[in-house]
């Protein structure tokens, strides 16, 4: 048989039916559900008198609306509370493999809890009504975000209507420099190919620099595949994948584990497999990244400067830069390290796992939040991450540095709960989107790695974490 890419293997092992024009029905193994994009789907199902096809595919949690402090008070915002209670009621009624409701010790961001519970396994198709579902591709899954109509479609039929994507390989070879993280790699990729560079593609990340990353790092990279326009990002299975999964609550056990691992080891692109497009980066060229605009592709290195629109010939691009700088309150040619921040957010499904918190803590240790910084939020991705961080004493480092140690959830990644920026406030954020208003109306977001966020917190402005020592 011809050499196949990982995507082709995942695709062909899930086709149930194919129309003449190539539209296919793809079987879905895992359906992750959260409170924001599911209520209309449950309602639609009920109105049509339909039942979920396979309840044991559903893993649900409440994350977007939940507060990150004063849990004893419950959810104060009545509209948010109604949405979370609607999810409670829907899951109670239809059932699920697992539900981690608000305040449960395993509750957390949907893209953190799937993998850490072993509910995301190599070879699966994974969907969720959330664009960052691409995260799960780190486990050699075909994982992508879907809309609410599709959530209902998957519940009712266990399938998704899809057309096959083209394939893109992003190969990063070499060794990442000290202080350069998975977040910097993915921001550098987006800077290179643009936010629409991956549209229509399933994106595989490979090369020695990707191989050397932990599962946490790989999840950070696949998480932001959607920010490069690709619905799905993925990394082939290796020992790192298998080690991570062994012993997780929903991972197979005993003989089933052996059988699964034997299959999983085949889940990588074959030698000589052809991709429709290949993009290459050298790990040594990647420096710590900081975004300066209102789209993740508006990014530069920490030693760079805010661009000057006057130097850009293309009128649509020039206007885009002008508009972004106006919104961001930045002057052209300002050195990145001279930009002062008001708040810092360490969290989100991009960077809220244990390794991210360790990186931030390593910078915060023995230092203090700069007086000019109003608030530093550290929001673990899940209850389990929180517990592990506390077992390692990371929370004490954060608290001693004047950072706030919070309960898990999406928090200021999209500011649906009470954690948000005031108009005009500037934030160093480890999340994934710097769109206008994303972290609060009028708020200004700069995307960075956890280490770079912590460095901005202790110095009051963007600082090259490699120079902090």
């Amino acid at each position: 048989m011809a050499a196949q890419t990982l995507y082709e293997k995942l695709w062909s092992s899930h086709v149930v039916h194919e129309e003449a024009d190539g539209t296919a029905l793809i079987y879905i193994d895992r359906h992750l559900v959260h409170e924001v994009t599911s209520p209309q789907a449950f309602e639609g199902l009920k109105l049509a008198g339909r039942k979920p096809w396979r309840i044991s595919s559903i893993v649900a949690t409440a994350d977007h609306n939940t507060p990150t402090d004063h849990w004893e008070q419950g959810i104060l915002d009545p509209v948010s509370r109604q949405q979370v209670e609607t999810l409670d009621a829907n899951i109670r009624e239809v059932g699920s493999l697992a539900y981690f409701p608000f305040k449960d010790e395993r509750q957390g961001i949907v893209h953190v809890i799937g993998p850490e519970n072993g509910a995301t396994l190599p070879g699966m198709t994974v969907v969720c009504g959330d664009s960052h579902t691409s995260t799960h591709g780190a486990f050699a899954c075909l994982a992508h975000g879907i809309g609410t109509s599709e959530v209902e479609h998957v519940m009712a039929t266990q399938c998704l209507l899809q057309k096959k994507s083209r394939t893109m390989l992003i190969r990063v070879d070499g060794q990442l420099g000290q202080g350069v993280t998975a977040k910097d790699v993915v921001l550098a990729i987006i800077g290179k190919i643009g936010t629409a560079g991956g549209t229509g593609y399933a994106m595989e990340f490979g090369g020695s620099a990707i191989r050397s990353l932990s599962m946490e790092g790989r999840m950070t990279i696949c998480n932001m595949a959607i920010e490069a326009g690709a619905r799905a990002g993925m990394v082939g299975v290796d020992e790192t994948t298998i080690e991570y999964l062994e012993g997780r609550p929903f991972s197979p056990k005993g003989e089933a584990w052996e059988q699964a691992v034997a299959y999983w080891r085949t889940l990588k692109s074959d030698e000589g497999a052809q991709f429709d497009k290949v993009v290459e980066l050298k790990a040594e060229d990647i420096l710590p990244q900081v975004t300066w605009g209102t789209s993740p592709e508006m990014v530069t290195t920490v030693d760079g400067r805010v661009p000057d629109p006057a130097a850009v010939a293309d009128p649509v691009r020039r206007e885009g830069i002008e508009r972004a700088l106006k919104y961001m309150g930045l002057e052209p040619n300002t050195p990145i390290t001279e930009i002062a921040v008001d708040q810092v957010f360490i969290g989100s499904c991009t960077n809220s796992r244990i390794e991210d918190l360790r990186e931030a803590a390593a910078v915060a240790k023995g230092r203090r939040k700069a007086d000019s910084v109003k608030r530093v939020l550290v929001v673990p991705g899940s209850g389990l991450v929180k517990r592990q961080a506390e077992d390692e004493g990371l929370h004490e480092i954060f608290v001693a540095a004047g950072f706030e140690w919070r309960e898990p959830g999406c928090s200021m990644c999209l500011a649906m709960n009470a954690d948000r920026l005031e108009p005009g406030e500037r934030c160093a954020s480890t999340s994934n989107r710097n769109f206008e208003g994303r972290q609060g109306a009028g708020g200004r977001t700069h995307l960075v790695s956890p280490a770079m966020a912590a460095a901005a917190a202790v110095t009051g402005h963007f600082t090259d974490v490699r120079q902090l020592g």
Partner: protein
Amino acid sequence: MNPFTKLDGLVAPLDRANVDTDAIIPKQFLKSIKRSGFGPNAFDEWRYLDVGQPGQDNSKRPLNPDFVLNQPRYQGAQILLTRDNFGCGSSREHAPWALEDYGFRVLIGPSFADIFFNNSFKNGLLPIKLDAAEVDELFRQCEANEGYRLVVDLAAQTITRPDGRTIGFDIDPFRKECLLNGWDDIGLTLRHADKIKAYEERRRAEHPYYFA
């Protein structure tokens, strides 16, 4: 879903690239557990001068006179001209719900983000990809002529300009059928229920650990 066949509609231009779904419908409105009523909050942060909250009387809010869709000449527009990568960002279907509830039935642009593109079809909203040069020309004509209208014929896959020029467009045959007939995807898929069951049984036998 409402079927879509043919539309003779007023056109409005939104001349920005990378319009994201946070801009189309800001997150505070995602707390709703309904599918309808998002139209008054479409493009909320650009459209109004104050900060919008769910449950407000939007008719009393101060409009931003600089926002293109607030101009009197574009009131009642059903066709929106867009630039590259429209609908990027979050998968929220609230974005097409808001556009549809606002009154749009057709979007025309050089490229759309994948998830948004897909979501649009499920809601009777037709996104049409054209060459950047064609889109440029539509922007020019639309801005130059008040009351600019286009005729979009899905069956024939054509857009007809007031000057008589007809532009063809591509669409997946399957999506076209669904949209023309207003078919519900779930009903269509369930015609293959036996195939789904057979696939599932095979998979369960080969990979039981996915079904634990």
